[in-house]
Each structure stands twice: as structure tokens, then as C-alpha cells.
């Protein structure tokens, strides 16, 4: 039996008068890749921000590894290895690439020691060689796609148990998109990282995901295995167009 690593219970959130989440519940099991789908403004990003502690739910509860984290500060949640790669990259623009990566390891810096972290950095450099080439360039001067790579690399440095990815393929070249998504799969397969993923690239993301949830106007309107979702006529209509290219 799979155990749930993340559980969202009846969570609501409002930006002032704007209700962005309306009693949402779902869960993610250990070792899964789960895709969160939905049109722009459906509330996907808001869900991830609530989970990661950047926003506090107006109602409801969130459990991570059976422990309630609803009221925990974002920085404490990170220490539990629940890591968010935020929308729009959010790299530290005036810090060098390498410093960005070091900061990813901030919460376990003392525990892991310098050596291990340097090894980790080599590992992510292996994944994104361009970052190695640019390791002393300032984050803000990287190209859009390079910044996205840096954001993902930085999250990997945090040694996630559960990785929340908010549109990781945004602005990446097709070749890299494939590589990144493949790497996500690899992370799960080899390092047992659980992944909750938001993607506009629905077909690609459902291909690596085990399950998916579909959101609309702050609620979950559909859920199911990837295959089923991929073949769901409504989903095809809304996200994939008539022909899956």
C-alpha cells in the first residue's frame, strides 16, 4: 500500500476579496509524480504557495509525512525537505550562479559539510553543463532558460523529499524540456523524490506523471491516472487541442 506523503484537506485561500482556492482536498503518495493541471488563473500556483508556506491557508489543513504543517513558516517547511521551485524562476539575480547553488544547500549546509555540497554541485553541473560554464556569471544576466535551469538546480541542491515544480519547462527549448522532465522522472526513480508538478505542457507532463488533478476556478474538477486523463475528451478539448501533436 502506498502511504501519502502530502495531504491537503479542505484548503481555502483568498487574496483579499478574491477567492483563489475553494475547499481543495487531494493527496500525493510517496514516490509518485502527480501533475496539477488547469487553465491560467485556476489557482495552481496558489496551491503550491500554500503548501510551501509562502501563503497561509484561510481554512483547512496541510499534512506532510503525517505531520501538520499548515501554520509552519516557509523556512521551517524547507527544512523538512519539502522544496518549491517557484513560478518565474526567482533566482537571486545579483548573486553568482554558484552562490545561488550554495544557497540551495543552506538548510543542510552544516550537516552535510562543504565536501558533500561541492559534490552535489558537480552533480547538478552534470545535468546542466551550461551552468558550470557560467558559474561566476550573475543569476540575473542568464538567459531566460538558463535561469529556469538554475532554479531547478538550486532546488535539487536542497535535497528534496517532495519537490513542488511550478511550470519548470517555462521558456525552455524543446530539447531541454524533454531533458528536464526526464530528469524529474529519474529523480523519482533513482532518488525516490516525490514530485508535484504544474505544467502547461499537459501532454508531456502527463506522460511522466502517474496521476493528475485538474483544477478550475479554485476547485479540483477532475482527477485520475495519467492515461485516463490523457484520453479524457474534455481534457483533450481544453488543453491538448484536437490532435495531440
Amino acid at each position: 500500500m502506498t502511504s501519502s506523503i502530502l495531504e491537503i484537506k479542505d484548503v481555502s485561500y483568498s487574496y483579499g476579496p478574491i477567492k483563489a482556492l475553494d475547499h481543495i482536498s487531494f493527496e500525493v503518495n510517496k514516490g509518485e509524480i502527480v501533475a496539477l493541471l488547469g487553465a491560467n488563473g485556476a489557482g495552481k500556483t496558489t496551491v503550491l504557495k500554500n503548501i510551501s508556506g509562502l501563503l497561509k491557508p484561510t481554512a483547512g489543513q496541510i499534512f506532510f509525512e503525517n505531520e501538520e504543517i499548515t501554520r509552519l513558516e516557509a523556512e521551517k517547511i524547507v527544512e523538512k525537505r519539502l522544496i518549491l521551485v517557484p513560478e518565474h524562476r526567482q533566482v537571486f539575480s545579483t548573486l553568482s550562479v554558484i552562490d545561488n547553488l550554495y544557497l540551495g544547500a543552506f538548510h543542510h549546509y552544516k550537516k552535510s559539510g562543504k565536501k558533500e555540497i561541492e559534490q552535489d554541485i558537480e552533480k547538478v553541473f552534470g545535468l546542466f553543463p551550461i551552468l558550470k560554464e557560467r558559474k561566476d556569471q550573475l543569476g540575473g544576466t542568464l538567459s531566460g532558460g538558463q535561469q529556469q535551469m538554475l532554479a531547478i538546480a538550486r532546488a535539487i541542491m536542497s535535497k528534496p523529499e517532495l519537490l513542488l515544480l511550478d511550470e519548470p519547462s517555462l521558456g525552455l527549448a524543446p530539447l531541454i524540456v524533454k531533458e528536464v522532465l526526464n530528469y524529474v522522472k529519474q529523480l523519482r526513480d533513482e532518488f525516490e523524490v516525490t514530485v508535484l508538478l504544474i505544467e502547461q505542457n499537459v501532454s508531456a507532463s502527463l506522460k511522466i506523471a502517474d496521476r493528475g488533478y485538474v483544477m478550475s476556478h479554485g476547485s479540483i474538477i477532475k482527477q485520475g491516472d495519467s492515461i485516463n486523463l490523457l484520453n479524457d475528451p474534455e481534457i483533450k478539448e481544453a488543453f491538448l487541442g484536437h490532435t495531440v501533436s
Partner: protein
Amino acid sequence: MNDSIQFLISGLTIGSIYAIVALGFVTIYSVTKVINLAQGEFVMLGGMTFFSLLKLGIPYFIAFLLTIVIVMAIGWLFEWAVIRKAKGADPLSLIILTIGTAIFIRGIAGVIWGKNSVKVEPFTNNEPLNVLGASITPQSVWVMVFMLLVVMVLYFLIEKTMLGKAFRACSVNPAAARLMAISPRKMSSLSFALSAGLGAIAGLVIAPIMFPSYDMGIMLGIKGFSASILGGLGSAPGAVIGGLLLGVIESLGAGYISSGIKDAISFGVVLMILLIRPFGLLGEKNVGKGGL
């Protein structure tokens, strides 16, 4: 010839003080992007607290340490009680907030200590030394020693340690910093305490040179601010160079041109330098347009 050495030494002494104050600005700015115009008041609190502790008969060295601790606590309290409460404020409002706080602190100091200047004994015997025909007091040497010490420690802290990286991360992107388990709040508290400590040190070393009074913070705050901008905001070595330069220009201006317009000269030079280097001497240019 002797004159010019004397001018230089005077300039370096006073410049070192500006530099320490400027380092306080840098510390807070590099974490929170706040320009804390109450920084001068920390200097004043350093000087006046030291005076009061000495008057209570507390031994010199203990009073020295105690002053730093007390002022750091005040800095920490200031962050906790004031800065943190003003969450939604933009940098400009924060400037006004720190100005308001400066007025507040100064007002209270005026009530506690009165308006008269006080006197503090120098660290060590203060018989002037003779350097190349110019005279320099041991206290001036202390000022420079402390300045160098402070900048070295600070430079190491900001540039070489993980804490320094965390400091800078908070200043560029606090929300993303939280996602790295860095608490911008803690960093902010820390930076205010640290910079209050620097202010206290400035107050301590300067107390025997100028006679401290409740309102000495205004001028030192402005000069420190100027020095930190001149050097390039956020750069610790820049703050030192800025401070020394400001002090020396002031002194040479007073010496060779006119003491009446020495401030006009020094600020005129600041203006010129900024025109040539719009981001200060060691300041980094804004990040390029890379990610547009």
C-alpha cells in the same frame, strides 16, 4: 609639507569614523535594502552609554563591552518593534520611518542625558605621537585600528561565509530566500543588531575625541550615509574607501581652500564622483538587461 601630513592625518582619523558608520549602513542595506538613517543615533547611543557606564564606576573595559551589548540590544529591539511592523512599506517610507525613529531616539536621549556635551577619557594614555612632523594622538590610531578590524571582519562575513550569502539572498529576493530556509526576519534582526554594534563601536572610539552629546548622531549619520554611497552601496570595502576619502577631502579642502566651505567642497566632490561613477566607487552596476 608638515601641514599637509597633518591635514592628511586629521582627514584619515575623521574619515575612519565615517567609514565605521558607513559600514553600519552597508550591513543593514546588504540584508534588507533599508537605508537606516537612525544609524547615527546608534553612534550617539554608543558614546553616551559608555559615558554613563563609566560614570557609574564600571571598569573601563567592561563598560566598553557592555556598551556594545546594550546598543546591539537596542538595534535588535528597533528592528523587532519598528522595522518589522512596517511590512508593506516601500524603501522611501522606510527611510522616513528611520528618520522618525532617529528623531524619537534623539528626543529621548535629550531627556535622559540633557543637552550638554560630555567627556570620556581616551582608551590609553593620550600623549600625542610625532609622525613626520605631524602630531597624531593614540586615540586616532585606535580609531583607525578599529576601523580596519571592523572592515576585515565584515568583509569576511559578507563575502566568504554562508551567512553572508544568506544576507545577500534576503536583499535580492526575500521570498525566494525563504524557500532556501533562510529566514529574512532573522537575518534582518541580525543585521540591525550587527549594525547597531558597529554604531556603538564608532561611538566608543570617537567618544574621547569629540565630546559626545545627544545630537551628535545627525552629522555622523549623514556623513556615514554619504560615505557608503560614495563607496558604492552594499560594498564594505567601498564604505571604507568612501569614508576615508570624504574625511581626507574635507580636511584638505579646509586646509588648502577654506574651512568655511569645506562641506561644500567635500559634497561637491561627492557629486562629481557620482557623475563619473553613477554607482559609487566600488558599487556594482544594476544587473544588465539579460533576462528581459
